[in-house]
């Protein structure tokens, strides 16, 4: 019926379609289990994380912190007599994929609680799904206030940006004596837009002047146009409340353009990649974050030692927050008595005085945590603790 060349062409076409379908199946999900001490069925906990992509260290560090915490919890019996099992889904640092990852965990894996995300935009994408499914969600590190406003099932274990904005605004005025500051923010990320807003508000309230207000998009690699405009406005400092990948490039290009004033940032800078990408360009810059690895608190030091032993690297703020978040969840499970959504939600909301590595964590009526911030300085190619700022 078919000639032989037609037949082989059809075969070739069929093979190509098959290959194409395989390619299109895309990046698979990352699933893992942690611990497994008990013989009872494990409690599934979901983790939406950016394990790859532009903010890969956020997801990876948080995941590691959580796994370490869960291992320790399971070693001492787990929660409710059952071991905890962490199931991680990668959202590849893409906002829309955070929602997909959350749905997979909620519907396919039927997790009891959702942990994540670090980036506020991605938490905002995932939270409505958790709220709709009546599954409690705790974000370890999203600081934009809108995240917990999604619903009463959404919590966070960190401070919020109305506070973080004031930290750097006051630091710039009091410590650096800066009267004129320029802002360069990422207008695609809720975190960056919000933090820039709060900084702007506080800085002008305490008498400072915003001399330039420039923006970029996540994923941009060229910032010289904006930096040249900023340079012409002659600021005393530049506030860059973005994520570490763009920050590294911005720092390098700023130095190339001859900008010598310090850059200031928020916890989006907290990653070893800031030092790797920025290199010598980020020397002498400051940023606010949740904890300092070189703090002399014995609890922090013990945590840093254990983490170093397990993973061979110094834990950053995301790792510490991940560790504390998993701890809070286990603690809440125990207090709740069972894994049902409403009971667990109430137990998390009642968390008071939990002694974490990142500080004493109490969940307030708005489902946020009131915590101190620290300001780190980049010195000698390392993050060094500079000052602590108590919660307002």
């Amino acid at each position, binding site marked *: 019926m078919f000639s032989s060349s037609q037949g082989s062409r059809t075969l070739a076409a069929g093979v190509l379609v098959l290959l194409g379908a395989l*390619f299109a199946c895309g*990046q698979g999900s990352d699933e893992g289990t942690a611990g497994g001490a008990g013989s009872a069925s494990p409690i599934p906990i979901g983790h939406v994380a950016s394990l*790859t*992509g*532009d903010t*890969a260290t956020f997801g990876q560090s948080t995941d590691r912190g959580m796994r370490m915490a869960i291992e320790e919890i399971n070693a001492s019996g787990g929660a409710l007599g059952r071991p905890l099992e962490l199931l991680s889904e990668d959202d*590849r640092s893409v906002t829309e994929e955070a929602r997909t990852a959350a749905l997979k965990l909620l519907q396919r894996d039927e997790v009891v609680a959702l942990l994540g995300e670090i980036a506020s935009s991605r938490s905002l994408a995932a939270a409505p799904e958790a709220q709709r499914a009546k599954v409690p969600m705790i974000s370890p590190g999203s600081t934009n206030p809108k995240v917990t406003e999604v619903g009463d099932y959404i919590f966070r274990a960190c401070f919020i940006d109305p506070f973080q904005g004031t930290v750097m605004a006051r630091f710039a005025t009091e410590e650096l004596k800066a009267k004129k500051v320029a802002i360069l923010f990422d*207008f695609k990320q809720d975190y960056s837009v919000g933090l820039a807003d709060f900084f702007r508000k506080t800085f002008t309230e305490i008498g400072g002047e915003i001399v330039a207000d*420039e*923006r*970029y*998009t996540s994923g*941009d*690699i*060229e910032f*010289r*146009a*904006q930096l*040249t*405009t900023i*340079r*012409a406005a002659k600021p005393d400092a530049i506030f860059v409340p973005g994520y570490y*990948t763009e920050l*590294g*490039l911005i720092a*390098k*290009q700023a*130095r*190339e*353009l*001859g900008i010598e004033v310090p850059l200031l940032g928020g916890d989006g800078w907290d990653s070893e990649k800031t030092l*790797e*990408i920025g*290199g010598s360009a980020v020397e002498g810059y400051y940023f606010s974050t949740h904890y300092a690895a070189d703090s002399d608190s014995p609890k922090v030091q013990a945590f840093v030692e254990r983490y170093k032993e397990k993973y061979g690297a110094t834990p950053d703020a995301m790792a510490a927050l991940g560790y504390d978040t998993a701890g809070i969840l286990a603690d809440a499970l125990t207090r709740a008595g069972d894994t049902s959504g409403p009971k667990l939600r109430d137990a998390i909301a009642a968390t008071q005085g939990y002694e974490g590595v990142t500080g004493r964590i109490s969940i307030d009526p708005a489902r946020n945590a009131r915590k101190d911030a620290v300001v780190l300085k980049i010195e000698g190619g390392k993050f060094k603790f500079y000052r602590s700022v108590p919660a307002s």
Partner: protein
Amino acid sequence: MEQFLQQLLNGIAWGSIYALIALGYTMVYGVLKLINFAHGEVYMVGAMTGYYAAHALGFAVEPSFAGLFVVLVLSMAACAALGATIERVAYRPLRSAPRLASLITAIGISLLLQNGGQLLFGADPKFFPSLVAPREVVRAGGLAVSNIQLFVFGTTMALMVGLQLVVTRTRFGRAMRAVSVDAPAAALMGVPVDRVISGTFMLGSALAAAAGILVGLSNPKIDPLMGLLPGLKAFVAAVLGGIGSIPGAMVGGLLLGVVETLISAYVSSTYRDAIAFVILIAILLYRPTGLFGTGQVEKV
């Protein structure tokens, strides 16, 4: 005023990259009347090859100009081979097929390289090693020129002059021009059309690889999807200058880079990526043959 000059400088350095990539588009269109949508991915492979070459040969640890030169040459050679392979495997079999088939194939190759790159290189961004320590070279008042920007501009100029010499002064260049005017006639005159087309692809791909290395130097973040947007914008630059015209591609690229930078600086950086496409629509509406293109008279 000096801020404007600085922005102009930024725009020219950035536009040089577009110009180098646009040259590949325009040359291939000239000889084949095909828009090679996979060209942006060749630029990406150039950057990636440079990254791995720099690390493998130890230049990442000990930066030097010689190392940069070696990496550049290696990357250009690798991408020339890639370009010739793509032509041989994907476009030559469709030479006599309707033009739409080649266009779809080009898009397919583009997707193949993007996703293949993600599999092979990993989806995370990589950071190109500093093969040259960035230094401020000129400081005239408020104007700051870094040695890297000078290098980008210098290399681009050298490559463009080189290309112009090849096209106008060599036999191969003459063969290329012959094929782009009338391929069957050129074949009848004894021009080895297949070899000329392969050579054109190799030349264009080598230029794209150079663009990839230069971007790696001045904007060190590279990832497998980095060729998507610059590829599209360089295509717009080629159309702006007149697709098929080599000086057109050079001017189109520089112009696009300058306009993009100036709009980012003086209007809003929100529109940075949109500029290219607004220009594309405007050009197609008002002057479809581009700045340097000549209207083609079609005999009916």
